[in-house]
C-alpha cells in the first residue's frame, strides 16, 4: 500500500444468506483507490457495485477479506467521519430548510453555530445554490435537491465522497449539467470520489479510473485507467479517445456477462 492509497480492498468477499440460499454479492475483490482519484463503478444490476460502495462506508460487513479506508478499518473510518455519502434519492428532510438540511450532519458532529453557518454558505456556493439556504426542499427541482444533498455530504471535513447513482433519477439534460458541475467541484476540493453508475458515458466522462464489474458472483471484470486530461469540457465526449475508452468499458461489460445475454 503506497502513501497515496486511500481505499484498499484485499480478497474482499461478501455473501448474503437468503432464504433461497447464499448470494455471492462480492467475490475476491482487489482494488486500490489513490488520493484524488475519481473512481466509477459500472456494471449491470446485481453486480455488487452498490454493495461494494456500502462496504467502503461500513454499511455492509464483508464476510471475507479486508478493506481499509484511510489506513483504518471501514468501521473506524466511519466513526471518524472519513467520508460523505450521497444516496440515489436526495433524502432531504421536508421540515428543514436547505440550510437546515446541510446543517444536520454538522449539528450531529457538534460544530458551533457560527462554524455551521460558514460551512453552509461555503458548500452552497460550491454546488451553485447560494441564496437557497432558506428555501424548503419542495421549492427546489429534483436536480437542485440532489445538489443540496451533495452539499450536505461536503459540509464536514471528509476527504472521501461516496456517491451511489446520485443522478440516476434525473433526466439526461440535468444529468449532463450536474456531471460538469461535479467535475468542477472535484477539481476545487481535491476529494477522492467513488461513484456508482449505470451509464457508460457518465463513467467515462467523470472518471480517472473505471471499475467494470460483472454479476453472479459480483467481481471486477476490468479496471480502466482513463487517459483523458483532468480538464474535461462536455464536448470531450465526441473525441476518439473518449469513444475508445467507452468501447473498452462496453467490451468489459460484455465479457463479464459471458453467455447470459
Amino acid at each position: 500500500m503506497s502513501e497515496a492509497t486511500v481505499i484498499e480492498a484485499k480478497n474482499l468477499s461478501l455473501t448474503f444468506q437468503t432464504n433461497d440460499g447464499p448470494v455471492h454479492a462480492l467475490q475476491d475483490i482487489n482494488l486500490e483507490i489513490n488520493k484524488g482519484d475519481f473512481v466509477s463503478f459500472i456494471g449491470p444490476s446485481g453486480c455488487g457495485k452498490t454493495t461494494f460502495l456500502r462496504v467502503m462506508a461500513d454499511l455492509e460487513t464483508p464476510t471475507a477479506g479486508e478493506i481499509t479506508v484511510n489506513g483504518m478499518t471501514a468501521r473506524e473510518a466511519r466513526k471518524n467521519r472519513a467520508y460523505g455519502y450521497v444516496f440515489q434519492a436526495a433524502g432531504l428532510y421536508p421540515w428543514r430548510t436547505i440550510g437546515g438540511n446541510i446543517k444536520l450532519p454538522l449539528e450531529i458532529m457538534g460544530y458551533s453555530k457560527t462554524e455551521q453557518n460558514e460551512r453552509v454558505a461555503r458548500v452552497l456556493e460550491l454546488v451553485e445554490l447560494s441564496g437557497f439556504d432558506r428555501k424548503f426542499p419542495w421549492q427546489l427541482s429534483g436536480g437542485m435537491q440532489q445538489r443540496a444533498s451533495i452539499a450536505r455530504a461536503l459540509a464536514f471535513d471528509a476527504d472521501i465522497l461516496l456517491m451511489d447513482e446520485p443522478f440516476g433519477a434525473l433526466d439526461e439534460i440535468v444529468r449532463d449539467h450536474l456531471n460538469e458541475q461535479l467535475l468542477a467541484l472535484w477539481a476545487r476540493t481535491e476529494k477522492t470520489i467513488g461513484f456508482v453508475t449505470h451509464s457508460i458515458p457518465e463513467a467515462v466522462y467523470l472518471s480517472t479510473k473505471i471499475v467494470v464489474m460483472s454479476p453472479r458472483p459480483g467481481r471486477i471484470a476490468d479496471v480502466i485507467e482513463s487517459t483523458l486530461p483532468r480538464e474535461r469540457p462536455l464536448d470531450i465526449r465526441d473525441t476518439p479517445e473518449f469513444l475508445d475508452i467507452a468501447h473498452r468499458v462496453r467490451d468489459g461489460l460484455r465479457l463479464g456477462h459471458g453467455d447470459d445475454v
Partner: protein
Amino acid sequence: MDCVWGTAMTSSPSIISRVTPVLTIIAIIIAVWYAGAVALNAPWAQDKATRAGVTLSFSELVSDTWAQEKPKLPAPHQVAKEIYNTTVMKKITSKRSLIWHGWITLSATLLGFALGTGLGILLAVGIVHSRAMDLSVMPWVIASQTIPILAVAPMIIVVLNAVGISGLLPKAMISMYLSFFPVVVGMVKGLRSPSAMQLDQMRTWSTPKSTVFWKLRLPSAMPYLFTSLKIGMAASLVGAIVGELPTGAVAGLGARLLAGSYYGQTIQIWSALISAAVLAAVLVALIGLIQRITLTRMGMLR
C-alpha cells in the same frame, strides 16, 4: 414565504364547497329523525286519543308526536330546546346546567387523554428501540383492548375508591385505558416510518440513537401521531362517560344519561347524547386544526 400561503390558499377548496356536503347530511339526518319521531311516538298518541274517545287527524297526530313529555324518540326541536334551557338559561354552577356536567366530563377526558397520550408515546418509544419490549409488550397492548371497557370500568372505580381515590382520577384512568392504544399503534408505525436510506444516512454520520430519535424518527412520526390523537380523543371521551356510569349518576354527561334513563327522561338523555357528540366533534376538530398548522409548517402537508 409569500408563495407558501399562496399555494395553500388556492389548493384548499372554498368554504362553501366544503360546508355544503356537511349541511346536506345534517338536513337528511334531521328529516329522518322527525319521521322516526312520528313513527315511534304515534302508538302512544293514538292510545291517549282512544282513551279520550277522539280520533286524531294526521296533522294532529304529527304535532302530538313532536310534543310529548316522555317520547320514545324526542323530536330535534325538543332536544334543542332542552339543550338551550340547560345551557344558556341555567347558571354554569347549577347542577342542572349541561355546561357544568359537560365540564366534569371534559376535564376527565382531557386528563385521561393527556395520560393516555404520554403512556402511548412512552410505550411506542420502548417498543421501537427494544426488541424485547416489541415482543413482550405489544401482545398485552392488543389484549388490553379486547376486554370490554364496560366490564373493567366498575372494577377500576371500585378498586380506586377502596384506596381512597375518587372523583376525577378514576374516570381519567378509564379514558387513558382507551386512548393509549391508538397512540401506541400509530406512534410505533410513525417512529418506524423513516426509510432504510434515511437510517443508513444517519449511520454514515455515526449518529447516536437518541439523536436519530429526536432529529429523524420523532419528526417523521408527526402525521401518524395526529391521526392517533384524533382517535384517542374520541375514545377518551367515551371512556370518561363510561366511567361516570358506575359512580351512581352524580355528575357528568354520563350521569345525565344514566339519570335520564332511570326516570324515563328521554329528552334529557338525547340532549346529553347530542352534547357529548358535539363535544367530541369540537375536540377532534381542534386536533385537526393543530395538525394542519403543524404539518404545513413542517412541510409535510402538500
